[in-house]
């Protein structure tokens, strides 16, 4: 039974299809990666799944229930949480408060109760604080709880954003380029953390440019090119898929006809094997 099922999704901007006919599934407990060159439609796909954009066509189901066209906050409430390409922390708050925002969809007191500081609300507020602290512990930033979010270096912002997403108690996490802007050591920490998250039973779907990260981390890879899926499978297989190499290194598709000035070909690649895992 797939946790997330994307069927034939399409989305165009002013006649230009950014995502077209994309279908794939994510199984529970998986780490699935989506790769592809610039402009392949990865972020658009993420925005479609998390509800920031509405698909022109196609269907998205999560835990067996259709989430197509739902509002982002409804999708977050349904257990699907995300991070952004540029960590979008709330800069007017401190680190802990940022993570506390993540608890929003799991808590309920409204304007009146909060204004009057009703006993139940105060209790809930304490619970929010504790849960947020626990998530900061998971990403190892508990010691920064009181710092202003704007004062953090880039790498730590990513971690806070991750903690904030975890605070929503997601069944599945969408990570948009989590490793970009991180240094080598931070990338290693991130990889460990993502695996740890998966081991706690949270399924992970990530878009990533850094091949060393995504190859090492993913159980399964989907490759997009110009809005369409061109390959899917285990990392090793995808890496050696000639179509993938072609879109990445740009081996000219017409090089057979291009005559004498063609450059020497890249070394022949072994045939793709989808079961090398």
């Amino acid at each position, binding site marked *: 039974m797939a946790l997330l099922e994307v069927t034939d999704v399409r989305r165009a901007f002013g006649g230009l299809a950014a995502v077209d006919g994309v279908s794939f599934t994510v199984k529970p407990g998986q780490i699935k990666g989506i790769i592809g060159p610039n402009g392949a439609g990865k972020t658009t796909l993420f925005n479609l799944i*998390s*509800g*920031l954009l509405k698909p022109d066509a196609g269907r998205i189901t999560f835990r067996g229930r259709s989430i197509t066209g739902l*509002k*982002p*906050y409804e*999708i*977050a*409430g349904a257990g699907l*949480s*995300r991070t*952004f390409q540029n960590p*979008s922390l*709330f*800069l*007017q*708050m*401190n680190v802990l*408060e940022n993570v*506390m*925002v*993540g*608890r*929003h*969809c*799991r*808590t309920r*007191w*409204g*304007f009146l109760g*909060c*204004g*009057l*500081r009703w006993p139940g*609300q105060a209790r*809930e*507020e304490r619970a*929010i604080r504790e849960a947020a602290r626990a998530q900061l512990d998971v990403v190892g930033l508990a*010691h*920064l709880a*009181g*710092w*202003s979010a*704007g*004062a*953090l*270096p880039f790498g*730590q912002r990513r971690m806070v954003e991750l903690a*904030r*997403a975890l605070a*929503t108690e997601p069944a599945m996490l969408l990570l948009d380029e989590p490793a970009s802007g991180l240094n080598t050591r931070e990338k290693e920490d991130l990889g460990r953390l993502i695996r740890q998250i998966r081991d706690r039973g949270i399924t992970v779907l990530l878009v990533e440019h850094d091949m060393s990260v995504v190859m090492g981390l993913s159980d399964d890879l989907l490759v997009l090119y110009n809005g369409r899926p061109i390959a899917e499978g285990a990392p090793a297989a995808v890496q050696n898929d000639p179509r993938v190499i072609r879109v990445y290194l740009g081996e000219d598709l017409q090089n057979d006809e291009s005559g004498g000035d063609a450059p020497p070909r890249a070394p022949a690649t072994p045939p793709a094997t989808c079961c090398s895992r």
Partner: protein
Amino acid sequence: MPRLRLLFLLALFPVMVAGAQLGLRAAGMEYCLTQLTMSVYYALVVMGLCLLMGYAGQVSLGHGAFFALGGYTTAVLTTHDFSGIRACAGVGVLERAGLLVAQQDLYGQAGLSVAPWAAFAAAMLLTFVVALLIGYPALRLRGHYLAMATLGFTLIVSKLLLGSALTGSADGIHGVPEWKLLPGLTVSGRSALRVQNYYLACGLALLLLLGLRNLLRSRVGRALLAIHDRETAANAMGINTAAYKLKVFVLSALLAALAGVFFTHYTGGIAPSEAGALKSVRYVALAAAGGMANLWGVTVMSIALNYCSLRGWFGSYDNAVFGALLILIISLAPEGPLKPLGLWLRRLAGRPDPERRTPHGAP
């Protein structure tokens, strides 16, 4: 620590309020409390605007109109003579329930009007409905369009007030009766009740400040800040941004109307100048002058500036001073002139600046 600070603040403001009163009394200038009380009521409007603009990031040029809506509703209901409908069924019931009361004005004219409490409830209810009607479509608009929608609302309200005889057209309504809030506590401009009313206004402001502070330090406040900062991310974190924006708009409109009701009973009347576009701009200016997302700063600045204005310090340069101040503060200290002061106080108290703190190991 936060608990201590709360206690400190809780104690500080009553001390300041009472200190001002006793100081003025000692100086023989207790009459200044009149303008202070009026300024405090105006500050309630700006507090609501602070919530809306500073925290939720929505601009409203309609708060003058909401103030007038509250004030006019109560003024019309408490001064209009309903004795003509005495014959109707049910009026007796209303009278017995204390909703309608017989009144006599200064010149011996008797009449039957709505009791201030009932008028207050009606004003709040009306404002609630109107704010919902305006806010629901308007908050789907962004930026300049929202400003236009609220500005349009202001103009409609002010033109309706000017055009209809029920609201006294250009002269507005006067002779609004006192409001016996509780036994021994009356909202009235009589100089004998000046001190009482000063404490009443300050107490009301303090209660609302505490309530708003609680609100801002709860999940609701964090949601509002999140919406202001990054609406997309807020939505993706499970916050129903549209609903929150609407709710905070209605709440701040209600605050403005509340201020309008008290102010009208305090000064004994209301006029269309309260609903003018310039007044709404003035509230925005006051919120900006206090630093927008700074509840205490906004309240203090608004009280101080309105106080100076109501005492006529600026003479014929009143508007000019407001305009110039607005330009100066926004261009030199967009976070409000009180922010640097607050940081300085913090440092004096040996507490680190929250802005300057950088974690260990950061470059």
